[in-house]
């Protein structure tokens, strides 16, 4: 999601919930540490900006290294999910 445009933590969690039709609900207690970890690893870059509501918010954007990693992870996810669905599909 942050690959498309810079987003703040709350935005990410809301988008996650709506896009997955409420199936995925990431606890905020896990979301923020995960974001900080990615920032620490240089996969995300954070900046402080005005939000739509006019308050200061921390926006996360993907970095070059982040996109590269995303590509890799997506591929491996595709492989894995394909494998799983293959296993689960009745013959």
């Amino acid at each position, binding site marked *: 999601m942050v690959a498309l445009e810079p987003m703040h933590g709350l935005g990410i969690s809301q988008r996650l919930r709506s896009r997955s039709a409420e199936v995925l609900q990431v606890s905020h207690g896990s979301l923020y540490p995960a974001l900080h970890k990615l920032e620490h*690893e240089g996969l995300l870059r954070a900046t402080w900006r005005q939000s739509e509501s006019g*308050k200061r*918010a*921390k926006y996360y954007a993907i970095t070059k290294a982040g996109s590269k990693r995303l590509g890799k992870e997506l591929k491996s996810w595709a492989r894995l999910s394909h494998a799983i669905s293959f296993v689960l599909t009745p013959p």
Partner: protein
Amino acid sequence: MLPWLTLRSWFRSVVLRRRVDRDIDDELRFHIEEEVESAVRSGLTPEDAHRAALASLGGSSTLVREACRDQIGVTLVDDFARDLKHGARLLRRNPGFSTVVIGTLAIAIGATVTVFSIVDAWLFTPLRFPQPDRLVIAFAAEPSRPSEPAVWLPYRAYLAWKARSRTLMSVSGAFVHAADVTTSTDAYSVLGLSVTPEFFRTMGVGPLLGRTLSADDDADPRVVVLSHGFWKNRMGGSPSVVGTTLSLSGEPHVVLGVMPADFETRVLDRRFEFWTPLRHDADPYRLGGMGPVTIVGRLADGIPLDTARTELASISKETEARYPLNFNRFVINVTSLQADNTRTVRATLWTVSAAVAALLLIAAMNVGALLLGRGLGRTREVAIRAAIGSSRAQLVRQLMTESVLIAFCGGLAGLAFADIAIRLFVAWNPLGTLPASTIGLNTAALGAAGVAMAITAMVSGLVPAIRISTATPHEALSAGGARGHAAAPAHRAQAAMLVGQMAVSVVLLVATTLLIRTFARLQSAPLGFDAANLSIANIVLPTDPFGSSEKRNIYYRQLAERVRAIPGVRAVAGGTSPPLSSGAQMTVNTGPDDATNAPRISVQEITSGFFETLNVPVLAGRPFDQRDAATGVQVVILNARAAHDLFGGTIAAIGRRVRLNREPWREVVGVVGNVQSTFFNTLEWQTMPILYRPASQSFSTIENPEATRFAFQLHLRSDRRLTMADVRDAVLSVNARASVTELRSVPDMIADATKQPSFRMTLLSAFAAISLLLSALGVYGLVSQSVNQRLREVAIRRALGARTADVLVTVTYRALLVGVAGIAVGAVTAFLFSDALKALLYGVQSHDVMSFAAAAGALLGVTTAAAVLPAFRAVRVDPVNILRAE
């Protein structure tokens, strides 16, 4: 992961941690406010909205903040700081304990750094010559001891090597040149080196002033190059010294040049003040090239020492085979110049290094055992921490931080201690010689300190940390509250550490006892003469006032009378060798034919009254007296060893004839007791065969027309310590041109000869004493701890009528078991390794039962005393008080 970003992020977290925290808080506040707003919009009350927002974060923003901080490593830094604070607080809270452990480590680390600095300066700092590792030096050695020089090489070996060697790019010969210098105000002996022209090129160093020696100087060899020290201290240090003359043993030498201050050549660990050309056209170098030299060479590029050794040995073997009297019974000994320069001190340095390593290990284990002991008292604290969620890694880290802190404090104090100790060592100079490079706290020494700290931190910290954290909270807490018995592994580890500490102590104690006994043997070994109140004066005078043996004998009688008149002097006699040195070696024949393999014997020339003055017993025949005049029957006296070797017995020797080299036959008129001598770099006293000739018949320099100086040692026995002025006045009143270059007391000379064993013994004794103290400390701690833990048990048993002995056994049993185990392990280890000390022992076997018994006994005694002392506290407890306190 991108390392620089990570580093930057860590940097931010450490330096800007307040900003990092604020950022996280701001972000979370934004989240909550937005959530609350949207919730209020959808109809909730602000309070409910706030609660819901918090719930979505997992209940509290603090927890989320902590989790975020964990992710970016702030926690790690924080935890370390907190552990450090905790450790420092523990140390402060228990100043007695802290002083003991930090003091222990300071002494051990300080001693390690000091010894390391000294060893480094001697053995590892390169000599100050260009490419010093290419410089080698050669002697001849006995086949039984191929690495110890036994005799000098013949001059012809130098000629052969120079002509034929491919492994040495430069070859030079050198021999010691002892000279006396007499000025209007002063007279002194000085040691120089006679060298062949290639010497300075071989060393690769040019002069500071003037020039060095060249092959042209052979035409007029009365030239000299001075050392920087000699030039500064004795010649005034003026550059105009070049071209002036310096009188060496009465012969004027033109000063050619002065060497730079850091040019210091040593041979057999002796230092030299000047260099003169080697007179290869004079005796004994002229005839058959038999004159003594050592050969200093520079290895050709890429040639290893062993290759050179093989080549030089084969060249010498071929050359020597051409001569009937040859050196082929010796082997060629080639070593690096640095190895030669450290020949006398190396054994001492290695011994002391091993001892200091043992001390460091003992100290580390001791501190480890103390930390374990205290850690056991903290089992409950650790268990509670584990129970409320501390991970094993966190516990280990926390306990380790403390020992790192202790090692660090100990290391810092140790460095300060080492700095002082090094200065003291240099000032004290207990080995009688200092390395060419300065000893000091350099980077290498700091590195050594770091390694020592790391070792102590690991030994003393890691084991206790792992052992204590092994206790499961359930066991520790259910075992009985504050009195909880700690986990068995921790107890076992503590006992193992104490056993290890004692075992190493036993090894150190055995080594020390062996060295003490060696020194005692060296001190008490009969030297064959009475050294007490004996002094030696070195007298030098020109030969020209004599001209004939009669005149010289009259001079000597007058001198003896005058010297005996000095208040306090009881006996006086002259001789050519000072005590403890064996004198010149000559071949001796007893049969009608000159055997080519005739034995060699030390020859000394002495005046009448010599044996009386030294208190050497006459075993058969008579001493020299007035019958042995210059023109009378030529006579000699043998010592018992020579009489036995040559004639099979003391009485059998009387009346027999001997012949030295090709001199006239002489009759043996007496046999005297053996006088011991030393040979360089050997520890033991040696009984050499000695032949004495009467000075009245043969101060050989008189017969040598080339000799201009005449030197002998005046042996004086006196009731008081003589001063230089006493002797000089008496000597000058007989002949104003004579000079006294040296006055030494014989007990001082003996102390000098035993300097290395004495130093080894002193230092190891100090280390052994510290190790005993540490063992005592360890056992004391163990028993105190056992008493504390069992106070309740003891009280109950006392109440039930247990006897004092039973109580003592209960609380000391474990400590004594540890002591006995440590002694047993140590004794076996010492037995296996004591052979390494063999070369340093004299008059005592490396497996000497007495030494082992003494070492074990000392440790057992100390252990028992240290165990019983705190145990009595358990005996004195009042059961009522203890049980009521429950």
